[in-house]
């Protein structure tokens, strides 16, 4: 359990757990120390016990082969969703401590992944491993393959488009770290994905590469059924609710794209404004050197403009690092969601095609053949998973954007407050000599 005496962990490096952030801090920040609600050990045990009763699909099994009992387990899953708020969490994952590794072939960054859990799926209560971006990429692919009916959160962009950005700069690494942390936390919060076997291995394995190689064999089996699901059936029409989701996602991505462009444009204009300010301030200094009585006031104005310039620079840096990446993340998210919708369409199309074929055959009535039933199950599961995920996604999206936009407003308020303070402080300086006259 957390808070115990530090001991050697079954993973890389001698890390002390005492200086790690408290797991009960909010899901999107790892800085808070000491959460406001500590679940009692009893509650946690009860929670884990409850998990055992569920038939939850772990990694490796394609969605299509779940049994008819899955609908009840689905119900259980959905019910437990309501219980998952801050107080009853039993899995906490954090990404931090980026480190640069220089090898003969390449240079790359690894991040420390810290996991604390009381779940039975974890042998130990705590883990600390090191992972690099391609490991995250691998995990995401595995999740997409193994849970095709669910919405998998996006990763930050793989390649840096603008050649100007330094892959190893502090700002870039920090932005990426935050996004990777967000990625894992979203999976952690998901009632199905968080129990995925690949996810578990990602969090715990000392040697991930060995597991990756092993997984290649599984891939062929999985790949086949996935191919089977997406085998070229044409859907006649999307049911209304999914069509609505599709339309929503289209417009949503469009609007986000526009906001991204506007935000970039604002940053660009602000930087150009900053360039001019940096020339403007010093001219007052030059003038100050010519004058006698006006010397101090002019110098004061110059310093003031300098302070405003610094405040502006902080604003543009913050917006670039904190605002833009989150927007881009959501655009990627809606793209991947659209492809999940398409997969769903495929499943429905297959079912409808098979059903039609049976109807035409005019045999086997009234009994519906097993494989058609399986298709129906697959479709209904997919629909249910998708609907549940969509609702979760909407609620998270609302929270994320509320936070993001409030953050943007906050940064602007802080900028103006800094400038206000600077200008207010020189008024007495400017007026002082007047009285002395």
């Amino acid at each position: 359990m957390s808070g115990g005496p530090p001991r050697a962990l079954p993973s890389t490096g001698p890390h002390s757990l005492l200086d790690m952030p408290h797991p009960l801090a909010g899901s999107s920040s790892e800085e808070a120390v000491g959460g406001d609600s500590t679940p009692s050990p009893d509650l946690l045990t009860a929670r884990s016990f409850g998990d055992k009763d569920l038939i939850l699909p772990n990694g490796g099994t394609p969605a299509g082969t779940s049994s008819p009992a899955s609908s009840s387990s689905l119900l259980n899953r959905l019910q437990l969703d309501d219980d998952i708020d801050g107080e009853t969490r039993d899995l906490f994952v954090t990404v931090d401590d980026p480190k640069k590794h220089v090898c003969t072939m390449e240079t790359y960054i690894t991040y420390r992944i810290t996991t604390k859990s009381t779940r039975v799926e974890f042998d130990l209560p705590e883990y600390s491993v090191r992972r690099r971006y391609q490991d995250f990429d691998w995990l995401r692919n595995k999740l997409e393959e193994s849970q095709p009916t669910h919405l998998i959160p996006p990763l930050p962009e793989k390649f840096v488009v603008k050649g100007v950005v330094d892959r190893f700069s502090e700002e870039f690494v920090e932005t990426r770290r935050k996004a990777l942390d967000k990625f894992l936390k979203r999976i952690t919060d998901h009632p199905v994905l968080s129990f995925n076997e690949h996810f578990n291995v990602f969090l715990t394995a000392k040697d991930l590469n060995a597991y990756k190689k092993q997984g290649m064999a599984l891939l062929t089996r999985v790949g086949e059924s996935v191919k089977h699901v997406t085998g070229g059936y044409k859907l006649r029409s999307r049911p209304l609710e999914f069509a609505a989701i599709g339309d929503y996602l289209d417009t949503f991505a469009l609007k986000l794209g526009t906001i991204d462009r506007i935000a970039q444009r604002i940053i660009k204009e602000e930087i150009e404004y900053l360039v001019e300010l940096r020339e403007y301030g010093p001219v007052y200094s030059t003038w100050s050197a010519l004058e006698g009585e006006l010397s101090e006031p002019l110098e004061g104005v110059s310093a003031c403009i300098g302070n405003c310039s610094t405040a502006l620079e902080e604003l543009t840096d913050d917006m670039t690092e904190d605002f833009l990446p989150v927007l881009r993340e959501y655009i990627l998210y809606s793209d991947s969601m659209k492809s999940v919708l398409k997969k769903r369409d495929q499943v429905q199309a297959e079912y409808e095609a098979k059903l039609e074929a049976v109807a035409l055959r005019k045999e086997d009535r009234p009994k519906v053949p097993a494989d058609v039933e399986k298709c129906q199950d697959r479709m209904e599961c997919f629909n249910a998973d998708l609907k549940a995920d969509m609702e979760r996604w909407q609620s998270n999206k609302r929270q994320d954007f509320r936070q993001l936009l409030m953050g943007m407003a906050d940064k602007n308020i802080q900028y103006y407050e800094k400038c206000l303070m600077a200008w207010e402080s020189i008024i007495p300086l400017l007026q002082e000599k007047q009285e002395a006259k």
Partner: protein
Amino acid sequence: MTENNFWLKKIEISVSEAEKRTGRNAMNMQETYTAYLIETRSVDHTDGQSVLTDSLWRRYSEFELLRNYLLVYYPHVVVPPLPEKRAEFVWHKLSADNMDPDFVERRRIGLENFLLRVASHPILCRDKIFYLFLTQEGNWKETVNETGFQLKADSRLKALNATFRVKNPDKRFTELKHYSDELQSVISHLLRVRARVADRLYGVYKVHGNYGRVFSEWSAIEKEMGDGLQSAGHHMDVYASSIDDILEDEEHYADQLKEYLFYAEALRAVCRKHELMQYDLEMAAQDLASKKQQCEELATGTVRTFSLKGMTTKLFGQETPEQREARIKVLEEQINEGEQQLKSKNLEGREFVKNAWADIERFKEQKNHDLKEALISYAVMQISMCKKGIQVWTNAKECFSKM
């Protein structure tokens, strides 16, 4: 409100209106110009009531004529400058067109400021031509020209020559000239960069207006988030449109700086006059010294310096004693005259330096006071802009929190 000793009572001067006019110019061609209404009021000491005493229309060129006249007749005074003839230091939103209403309005204020400065100057306010400028509409131009001031003006070439050749100008004037050059350069630079800053700031604010539109569009597809987004978008629109007033106010600050930019030229004019007078003095002294020497040589018969007369004497023979006497007499007369002239020039020069320096000290105090006021009002503008910004973003934040 100004004190006018000439009339021994308080008067108020205002340039209250501007009007577009068309007329015929000197070459009988149609032209469009702007005329400005000048109103003069006298204020009763006892009850503070003002009565309109004079009102007439003048155009910019007449102001120029008045100023040129003052420059010639009061060379020891730092004559207040006129607002710029053409719009300079503009940023993209400002028009460079002289007919643009905003430019005309700012010019109106500048012309009023000019008249107030002249009226409050202890020396200039007594000038008759200035009085007539305010009171006599017709025929004023003729009256000014009749003073023949154009003829009295120092030629530019003469002044330039003096600047290069003067040997012993008063150090203070040399320093002042240097200062006014630097002042002109730094204020020009400041105004140029400020215009660019205004341009950029305008861009930043206006782009935020796009948020208004896209938030509105986005809110249409959202259920719970919709209202918050929509109202936040409205605040972004408010933010974007607030910059127009902010920058209009800042133009006033730029105009205050411009006045002192042009004042630098007025300072230089006083320095130039001193250099001219000093050079004149030096030339007169030099001329006198050479005449004295000539006289001495003739009297003692020694030729120490080269002279044409000496050469011709050598070539064509000595002159008679009578001739020599005659020449000495002429020279002695000239020397006398020269000495008188030198004395009066010296006196003039010293008077000029004394009076000019007194006005320069007055100007320095005025400048320090005015520019400090300008900086304070600029700081106040910035504070107001920051407060508006905080207000808008706080409102937007509240809308976002309700999403």
